């Protein structure tokens, strides 16, 4: 079904839209020292701030045109918050988010709205992300309406129908309501909506994690197809490493608001450095011969700590199988261990000699 090639969206309505060009000189998205802190208050009448939850605490990465970055972490690691911060659904408390050279954080309402045309999003819950009171056509066409991308009703309808075909849905389905679709079909609707305004970057927030495995593959293939066809950049957020394996060019692993390791896809899977990454890899049910299981499964102790009271030193030390006393004192820096590989762990051999990672500003 995915391979069925339909006519590509012929719409030229987005005349002003610059097609995604692989300009190596400048990343499409650059996240610098991103911080998202939620205040925690107490008191009934006089509210006083007693602390903050550091959901995202100093994250750096960038995505080049046409590239896919996988962002992986357990729930509570801050990966979804990072995605939401880029989309400006949650306002960052610090740092910069440069999209195409513009800092999204400082844009005013109308500039931001214009910019949003270029960033699409697909959410995790394919049902929750669709307004149950709207028809599939209305949902998919919403960005067209919002950005006034059509000149006539007929044109609009044609555009919506072509979007349906693009994602492998029947054009006759536009009048149906979300509950009349299957889970996979719903996620196709989500993808269609994300593509409607011809974005350059799509944030995929665990787009397949609530789907059956067989459907997961279909959706991922679809996403890959579309990426190639429309020259899209993806930020693919996932909670395990297996999903992003196929689609990502590079992968970043998050733990408790910080990136603990980033690497080129093959490098990361072949040679994980950070004990957390290793634990994730060992836990992932990867039926893939490429991944060599070097050791037995690493089982992490306990739950991810509360971001309200993060552990001192290395935030991972409370669950780390190789932690030493020093880990609770020293905050590890993300340091480069190879051309495309950085990790934040003092236990990685050579940590003392490695130079701090500056890749966040240019590339991962």
């Amino acid at each position, binding site marked *: 079904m995915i391979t069925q090639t339909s006519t590509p969206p012929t719409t030229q309505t987005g005349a002003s839209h610059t097609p995604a060009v692989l300009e190596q000189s400048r990343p499409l998205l650059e996240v610098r020292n991103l911080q998202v802190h939620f205040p925690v208050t107490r008191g009934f009448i006089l509210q006083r701030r007693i602390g903050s939850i550091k959901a995202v605490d100093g994250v750096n990465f960038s995505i080049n045109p046409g590239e896919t970055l996988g962002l992986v972490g357990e729930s509570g690691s801050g990966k979804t918050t990072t995605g*939401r911060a880029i*989309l400006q*659904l949650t306002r960052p408390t610090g740092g910069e988010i440069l999209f195409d050279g513009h800092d999204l954080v400082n844009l005013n309402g109308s500039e*931001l*709205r*214009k910019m*949003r*045309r270029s*960033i*699409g*999003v697909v*959410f*995790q*819950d394919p049902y*929750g*992300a*669709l*307004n*149950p*009171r*709207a028809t599939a056509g209305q*949902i998919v066409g*919403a*960005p067209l309406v*919002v*950005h006034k991308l059509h000149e006539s009703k007929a044109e609009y309808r044609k555009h919506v129908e072509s979007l349906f075909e693009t994602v492998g849905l029947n054009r006759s389905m536009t009048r149906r*309501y979300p*509950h*009349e679709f299957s889970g996979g079909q719903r996620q196709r609707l*989500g993808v269609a*909506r994300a593509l*409607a*305004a011809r974005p350059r970057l799509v944030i995929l927030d665990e787009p397949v994690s609530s789907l059956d495995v067989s459907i997961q593959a279909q959706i991922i293939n679809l996403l890959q197809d579309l990426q190639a066809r429309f020259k899209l950049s993806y930020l693919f957020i996932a909670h395990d490493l297996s999903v992003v394996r196929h689609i990502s060019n590079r992968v970043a692993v998050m733990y408790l608001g910080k990136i603990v390791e980033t690497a080129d896809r093959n490098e990361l899977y072949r040679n994980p450095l950070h004990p957390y990454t290793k634990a994730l890899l060992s836990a992932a049910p990867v039926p893939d011969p490429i991944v060599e299981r070097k050791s037995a499964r690493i089982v992490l102790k306990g739950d991810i700590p509360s971001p309200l009271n993060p552990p001192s030193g290395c935030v991972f030390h409370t669950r780390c199988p190789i932690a030493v006393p020093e880990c609770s004192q020293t905050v590890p820096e993300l340091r480069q261990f190879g051309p495309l590989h950085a990790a934040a762990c003092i236990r990685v051999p050579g940590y003392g000699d490695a130079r701090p990672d500056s890749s966040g500003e240019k590339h991962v």
Partner: protein
Amino acid sequence: MAVEVAGRLRQVAAAGQGIGLWRLIRTRTTFAAGAAILILVSLMAIIAPVIQRHDPQGLSPVDRVEPPSAQHWFGTDHLGRDVYARTVHGARISLRVAASVALIVSIVGVTIGVVVGYNRIADNIAMRLLDGMMAFPTLILALALVATLGSSLNNVIMVICIVDTPGMVRIVRGMVLSLRERPYVDAARAIGTPLPMILLREIAPNTIAPVLVQSSVYFGSAILTESALSFLGVGTPPYIPSWGNIIGQGRAYIQVGFWIAFFPGVFLALTVLAANLVGDGLRDLLDPRLRGAR
């Protein structure tokens, strides 16, 4: 109203939970009975001029306080007016009050609730005001307001709306507080949908279900409140034959002509009952936790 409810229901069922209206009616006898009564009463109100054989205001001094007969099905009142004609005609007035209240409270409640639920400052102010409004026992507040504003049909409707709206706002606000966290609202924001459009397109339509349930409750309670106000002498002006007024005027004759207050009372109770049954049915349908409870 009933027709409208049925129509809405079809929409709700279609859009929401995937239960067809007819299946619903088959499985929910109480709802079906309520809807049927409401439809009948509404029909009666609509065709009142056709089915009443006497002028509801027509006096016949010679035929005062006559028991039900072939000529006067529900008997006559203390002025010789045909109680049947008045009861049938009264349905128009009472349903008008009920439908107006249900409609106005829904529209105003959704409007305020949606705005309030989406704006923290407005929410803080509004919730204090609503807490204050809800601190009044409703009938007593209604009494005081009607006493102040004066008795007229419109004032009665307005006053009932004033006392009912805070409850509706609360319900809608609660819905909005949870709806605004829904992914599809995020999705709408992410594509740059302006706030008013989000409120109108994404939030408001999704409050319909509880609003529908609540408005059916208000539909019934408005009839009761109107009649209580009329009974206490400050409701709909006495020359308007609302059920409340017919009962209120007939109550003095219960010992010699029980039929004057009895028949409109039965119709009133039946209509309120029907509205409540419809509300219950809708609640069961829309609140998955309660489904299968009966």
